[in-house]
């Protein structure tokens, strides 16, 4: 039978100050790790959550991003007539031709500016993204130089409030509304009328066309029709797949997060190890007594590891509490695949928090192992003489 848990809890609470220090130490390490994970998660969800599995994106064959894709207006007319496209209440096919152009605009913290995606859409573009809401001002009117700006871009760039105007290219653009993209990558964009954008930027073709198939079978047949028609020279992929692929442009962040996580777990492990070496050293005679009474080496090993895991669990919980405020941080980075701004919120959801706590416990188990082994291997007769 194992040594009772009350023994561990009693020991942890009897050395309150050193336990508190260990919990805080491990907690801070876990909080840093969770912040990095929240950053990565925030970027990922900002990009991936954009893609709907219901929508198909049609792009130029060989293009990786919307920016280097074009779809001729004649080809758009061919796509519009494909069988299997869902119809709206007016009987119109649910299909959205879109133009993406990069504007370089001055940032509040960087006057040299940064690239922002400007998306030209038709009203169908909004119908296909019903979660996108104008939260301030009004919708742009077609055929004029009006734009609506995402809330996060408004917060981070100069001259993007309702009533402001900014200059790009040969003309000024008037900001008439602010929209919320519900955490998707549209939160990093400015939207305007596709026809007007195309004409003033002299674009004879669309960048992409987004199609809503009627059902799964229709999606398969539309994809096959697009991919196999050599005259079109286009490719179709699910919108979700497209945005998932975009995260490869943020591989730097992922590597950084992995790097930091690795070292933070080592830090937490060393913290737990130090705590348990100290705890075991002060209880040498006690542990030897337990062995003399007949508790086997593995019972001693288990009790030390359990104690270490428990201290680390408390550290993990402290880490989650310490890291909670990062959820309030909204910032941005450059996606080096599109060279455009990606605005995102740090996102430490329950899954990330749980992963942090689990990693803390794993660190505790690993950190507790060495002190546990040394405690279990101590010769009883020598340990009994320890004061």
């Amino acid at each position: 039978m194992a040594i009772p848990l009350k023994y561990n809890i009693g020991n942890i609470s009897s050395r309150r100050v050193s336990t508190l220090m260990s919990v805080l130490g491990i907690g801070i390490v876990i909080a840093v790790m969770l912040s990095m994970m929240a950053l990565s998660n925030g970027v990922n969800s900002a990009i991936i959550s954009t893609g709907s599995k219901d929508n198909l994106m049609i792009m130029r064959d060989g293009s990786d991003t919307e920016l280097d894709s074009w779809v001729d207006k004649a080809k758009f007319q061919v796509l519009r007539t494909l069988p299997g496209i869902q119809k709206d209440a007016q009987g119109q096919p649910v299909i959205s031709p879109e133009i993406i152009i990069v504007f370089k605009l001055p940032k509040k913290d960087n006057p040299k500016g940064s690239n922002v995606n400007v998306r030209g859409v038709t009203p169908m573009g909004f119908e296909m993204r019903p979660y996108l809401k104008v939260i301030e001002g009004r919708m742009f009117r077609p055929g004029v130089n009006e734009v609506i700006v995402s809330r996060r871009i408004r917060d981070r760039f100069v001259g993007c409030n309702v009533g402001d105007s900014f200059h790009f290219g040969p003309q000024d653009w008037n900001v008439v509304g602010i929209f919320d993209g519900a955490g998707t990558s549209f939160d990093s964009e400015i939207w305007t009328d596709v026809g007007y954008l195309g004409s003033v930027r002299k674009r004879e073709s669309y960048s992409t066309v987004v199609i809503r198939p009627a059902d799964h079978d229709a999606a398969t047949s539309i994809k096959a029709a697009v991919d196999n028609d050599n005259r079109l020279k286009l490719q179709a992929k699910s919108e979700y797949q497209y945005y998932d692929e975009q995260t490869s442009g943020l591989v730097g962040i992922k590597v950084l997060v992995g790097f930091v996580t690795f070292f933070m777990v080592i830090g937490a492990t060393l913290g737990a190890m130090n705590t348990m070496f100290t705890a075991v050293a002060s209880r040498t005679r006690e542990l030897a007594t337990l062995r003399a009474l007949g508790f086997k080496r593995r019972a001693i090993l288990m009790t030390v590891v359990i104690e270490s895991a428990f201290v680390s669990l408390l550290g993990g919980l402290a880490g989650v509490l310490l890291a909670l405020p990062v959820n309030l941080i909204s910032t941005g980075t450059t996606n080096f695949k599109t060279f455009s701004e990606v605005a995102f919120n740090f996102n430490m959801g329950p899954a990330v928090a749980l992963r942090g706590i689990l990693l803390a416990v794993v660190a505790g188990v690993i950190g507790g192992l060495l002190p546990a082994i040394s405690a279990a291997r101590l010769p009883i007769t020598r340990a009994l003489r320890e004061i």
Partner: protein
Amino acid sequence: METLVEIHDVRKVYKRDQFEIPVLNGITLGVPRGDFLALMGPSGSGKTTLLNLIAGIDRPTSGRILVDGQEVSSYSETALASWRARHVGFIFQMYNLIPVLNAAENVELPLLLTKLNRKQRKQHVENALAIVGLADRMTHYPRQLSGGQEQRVAIARAIVTDPTILVADEPTGDLDAKNADETLDLLQRLNAEFEKTIVMVTHDPKAAGRAKHALHLDKGVLAEGQYGYEAEPAVVRT
């Protein structure tokens, strides 16, 4: 009289760096069942080492030790742990109670290694604490007890599994005269009333005087000779 502990030509050599330090130099001894034996001798004479060997927390370099017919000197580490749990009750000079457990929980520790259920364990703990006169101190923690009371809790822990043998290493070494007397009274009572076989290491001639027999070790050998007991030597099977 039946021999409970048989020690055959036991030697123990410790290694310190490249040096070999002989501690026991060929001890042969038989301890009868129901005896209360005091082992005496100056520091470094090997008495605690001999006690540790009998208790199964150390193993001899050569020779054999049998307790109740079982050759414990040949047991593996794991088998020895199980054997100690069932057959040996320990009483230490510094009591060695677990500070974060109360008296009842300390006494219950060896019972956790048995198949007894919670209710049975509780009954055994109450009985053991009643025998040592501490039935009213069940929920007290070691820091809330006097030295004498702590040692009595430790004795309750030693007897709670009804072990084959009690080993006591300087059980009065950390107590004042009054508490030492009470502890020795209790050991004598356990020996006389409950027929517990006790082997006790002590420096104190007064404490040794409370035992049935006393043997002296010097430089790893028994001063009294091979069998030790003058009046009624125990039988050592060869």
